[in-house]
């Protein structure tokens, strides 16, 4: 909604029920007013907005909330870490532990305002840390903290430095209308009503590890070592289920694979604790929408927990009514996270019907088929991740990680073929090529996540990618890059396995319909052209190859 449109909406608005709220942000809020009033008018409501005075958010959070006032906080990184405020310049030195302690303090203050509506704008921060990776890790930590508090995520490009410097308004003209609409949406959502459905991711959330790669014996969920955080989470879910909360799981996996740990009798949670365990390679937002439809419940009754910021963004953008929470990356964040969950699902009086609700809904959902609808267009979100793909020629030197990836990856795997170092060495000596690719983004370093082995005759023998980076378009970008190189691969040695459905989907998209196992021809020029936009999502560096 642009400025003139906002004025037109207001000119045509004949009044409606009052919508009163207080908006707090670090900066000037008043330029929002016309857009907020227009966004409310579009819903037939007459906005009455009170703005916190300039730069008083920190003080306001230390005052007890007025239960009669609906509070909305539009949070920026410097609300958690004041040294990150551009208007203060770049701090000469910082103590990272101190920064995080300040962030935790702000998070604690916000936790005491459970009725407040939170929005988080992950604006870029000045270079606070000596190492760029430290700054990226700090930004990711703050974002996780905000999401953990239940904040809605706004696109980072909504922040503009020019406006922030000149007037103190952190939102630029291109986004102010859309941010105002998000604020009004947050105000009108039904407050205080307990949520009904908790939808959880599985890998690195219900258990530690990747089930399909690490196997049942390789994942951890017991009260020891790396399993502890997940054990505690499971125990809270068990309690919530007993109080009437409906539990569901969505995972990018096959159903039978993800159900196995729940059938093993080794975990706190069992299969019958869930109304549905959905294994699907399609968008999680589509599964959640279908689940809510089948349960005949509103999306605003749902809470979604995941550890992957891309999955959280996809659901948050596609289904803004769903409350999204990030599973903590560190033990210190666990208490705040569990507290948020317990608050969202607070049940005061628990009836026998509450306790039996899961079984009732399980019967209703028996035979539910995962949805294959497409998810949100994540292009903007991915652009904002500022992803860097570093492609290494592993044909010489250290190929340990590349071989390791080929031998442990199951889902995104061209043919499931395992290789020995001797086989790889022989192929490379004969003129083959081995590539590895590492991914980094503004949230941190993902490490080496892709490997590709091409035989001397131009046939791709292995192509694998870690499922941690699904949805970031890395596989398309890499193939587009490879297809544009001199002597690109001419075919892929495809074989279907019991677990590589994600690769099958990818291959059908880049090479056309598949006709059984065997060689699949690759039209390199067409692939390079069709997926150039995917490649453009990344800053690609190929140090060894350019020499």
């Amino acid at each position, binding site marked *: 909604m*642009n*400025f*003139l449109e906002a*004025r037109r909406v207001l000119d045509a608005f004949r009044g409606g029920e009052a919508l009163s709220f207080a908006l707090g942000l670090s900066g*000037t809020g*008043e*330029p929002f007013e*016309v857009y907020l009033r227009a966004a409310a008018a579009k819903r037939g409501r007459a906005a009455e907005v009170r703005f916190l005075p300039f730069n008083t958010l920190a003080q306001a959070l230390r005052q007890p909330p007025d239960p009669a006032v609906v509070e909305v906080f539009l949070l920026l990184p410097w609300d958690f870490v004041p040294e990150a405020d551009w208007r203060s310049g770049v701090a000469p030195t910082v103590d990272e532990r101190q920064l995080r302690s300040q962030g935790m303090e702000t998070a604690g203050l916000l936790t005491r305002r459970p009725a407040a509506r939170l929005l988080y704008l992950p604006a870029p921060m000045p270079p606070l840390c000596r190492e760029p990776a430290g700054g990226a890790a700090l930004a990711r930590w703050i974002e996780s903290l905000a999401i953990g508090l239940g904040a809605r995520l706004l696109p980072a490009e909504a922040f*503009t*430095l*020019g*406006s922030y*410097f*000149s*007037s*103190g*308004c952190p*939102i*630029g*003209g*291109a986004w*102010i*209308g859309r941010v105002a609409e998000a604020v009004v949406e947050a105000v009108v959502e039904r407050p205080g009503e307990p949520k009904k459905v908790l939808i959880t991711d599985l890998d690195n959330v219900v258990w530690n590890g990747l089930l399909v790669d690490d196997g049942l014996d390789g994942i951890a969920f017991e009260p020891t070592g790396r399993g502890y955080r997940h054990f505690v989470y499971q125990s809270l879910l068990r309690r919530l289920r007993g109080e009437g909360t409906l539990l569901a799981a969505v995972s990018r996996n096959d159903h039978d694979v993800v159900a196995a740990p729940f059938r093993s009798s080794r975990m706190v949670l069992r299969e019958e604790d869930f109304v549905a365990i959905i294994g699907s390679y399609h968008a999680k937002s589509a599964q959640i929408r279908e689940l809510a439809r089948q349960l005949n419940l509103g999306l605003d009754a749902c809470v979604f927990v995941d550890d992957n910021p891309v999955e959280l963004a996809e659901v948050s953008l596609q289904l803004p009514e769903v409350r999204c929470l990030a599973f903590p990356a560190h033990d210190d964040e666990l208490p705040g996270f569990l507290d948020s969950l317990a608050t969202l699902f607070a049940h005061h009086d628990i009836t026998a019907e509450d306790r039996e609700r899961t079984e009732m809904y399980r019967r209703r959902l028996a035979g539910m088929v995962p949805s294959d609808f497409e998810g949100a267009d994540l292009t903007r979100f991915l652009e904002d991740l500022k992803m860097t793909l570093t492609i290494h020629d592993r044909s010489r030197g250290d190929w340990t990680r590349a071989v390791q990836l080929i031998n442990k990856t199951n889902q995104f795997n061209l043919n499931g073929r395992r290789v020995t170092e001797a086989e790889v060495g022989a192929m490379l000596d004969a003129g083959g090529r081995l590539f590895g690719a590492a991914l980094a983004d503004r949230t941190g370093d993902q490490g080496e996540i892709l490997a590709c082995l091409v035989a001397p005759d131009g046939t791709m023998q292995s192509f694998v990618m870690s499922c941690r980076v699904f949805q970031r378009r890395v596989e398309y970008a890499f193939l587009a890059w490879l297809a544009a190189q001199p002597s690109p691969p001419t075919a892929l040695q495809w074989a279907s396995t019991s677990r590589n459905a994600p690769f099958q989907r990818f291959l059908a998209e880049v090479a056309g319909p598949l006709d059984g196992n065997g060689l699949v021809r690759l039209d390199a020029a067409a692939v390079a052209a069709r997926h150039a936009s995917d490649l453009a999502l990344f800053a690609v560096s190929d140090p060894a190859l350019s020499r």
Partner: protein
Amino acid sequence: MTEDAEAKLQAIFRAALELPPHANVTRAGQREVASWDSLAHAMLMLAIESEFGVAIDAADQIRLTSYPAIRDYLEERVARGAVP
């Protein structure tokens, strides 16, 4: 600047500065227009960014205090291909 763009700029001025519908704003300057205070200036800059798809640097925002200055600025951005 095209006629449409000029008309849009004038509409933004009238709305952001709360001026009458037919007020001539082509010579308006911050010193002469009583309603052009710092808040109205912030709203004007955001409105121009929103309608013309540009991001205006802080230093430019401070010096863009009249209609002719803003018009010239937008024309220059158009010439540089910075306005979509």
